């Protein structure tokens, strides 16, 4: 069991193992020594609890390391500190312009398509839509990507502005 425990500890990030690995093993040895004096059911419960604890702990630490890694942006995101508890990123203006440009281009493209459909006699005769598989897939992926970037931008701006903290307002006087 101790060998299995140390094997599972190896799933943790190296920095975490260096910091807590020896200590965790020492504590587990004590817990396991207690369990050997108990019934088999208690030992089985200990094994299951420790295995699931180590697996979920290792996963959580890896996710934490991934999420704490610095993210690079193609534009500066220096923040303007407007007031206590409220931060407004400079990138907001850029993102809003980007979204506005996307909407304007989409409207323009839509108008062009409707005009070409109305004036093209071949299309008017057949009423059969023309599909270009690769182009359509590329356009669909591009649209989904653009929508994703826009949604991410809005969520990023909302998060930076602290809107999500509004539901934490305390009614108690301090």
């Amino acid at each position, binding site marked *: 069991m101790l060998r299995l425990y140390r094997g599972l500890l190896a799933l943790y990030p190296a920095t975490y193992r260096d910091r807590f690995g020896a*200590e*965790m093993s020492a*504590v*587990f040895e004590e817990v396991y020594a207690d369990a050997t004096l108990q019934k088999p059911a208690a030992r089985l419960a200990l094994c299951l609890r420790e295995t699931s*604890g*180590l697996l*979920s702990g290792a996963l959580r630490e890896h996710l934490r390391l991934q999420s704490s890694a610095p993210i690079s942006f193609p534009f500066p995101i220096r923040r303007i500190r407007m007031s206590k508890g409220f931060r407004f990123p400079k990138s907001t203006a850029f993102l809003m312009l980007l979204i506005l440009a996307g909407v304007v281009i989409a409207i323009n493209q839509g108008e062009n398509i409707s005009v070409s459909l109305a004036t093209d006699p071949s299309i008017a005769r057949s009423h059969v839509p023309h599909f270009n598989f690769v182009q359509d897939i590329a356009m669909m992926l591009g649209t989904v990507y653009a929508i994703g970037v826009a949604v991410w931008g809005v969520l990023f701006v909302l998060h930076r502005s602290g809107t999500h903290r509004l539901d934490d307002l305390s009614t108690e006087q301090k």
Partner: protein
Amino acid sequence: MALYDMSQEDIMQLLPLTEPVLLILLSLAGRPRHGYSILKDVEQMSEGRVVLSTGTLYGALRRLLDDDWIERFEEDDTSRGRQAYRLTPQGRKNLQLEIGRMQHLTRLANHRVAIKES
């Protein structure tokens, strides 16, 4: 951001604490303890309802250390690789804030239940 430069308003956003974390902090409130002692004390305080694994315990201790709620405490006897932990002044203050929050909630709950019954 470390907690020592956080305002009370910022700290309140970290509350409520989960039950295991609250029990770990309560365990360390009396005196410094090492990992095995914390495990046993948490189990005893919760009357066997909360039994922590070492993975869960050290995940919580890591977060509390990183946020300066607890700190390592040098013991005289380190022969068995034991490492003791204790609350920092900031951690004790945060624990008191959480207890105050729970007391306020309990008073409010008792008041509302009493109104409903009458």
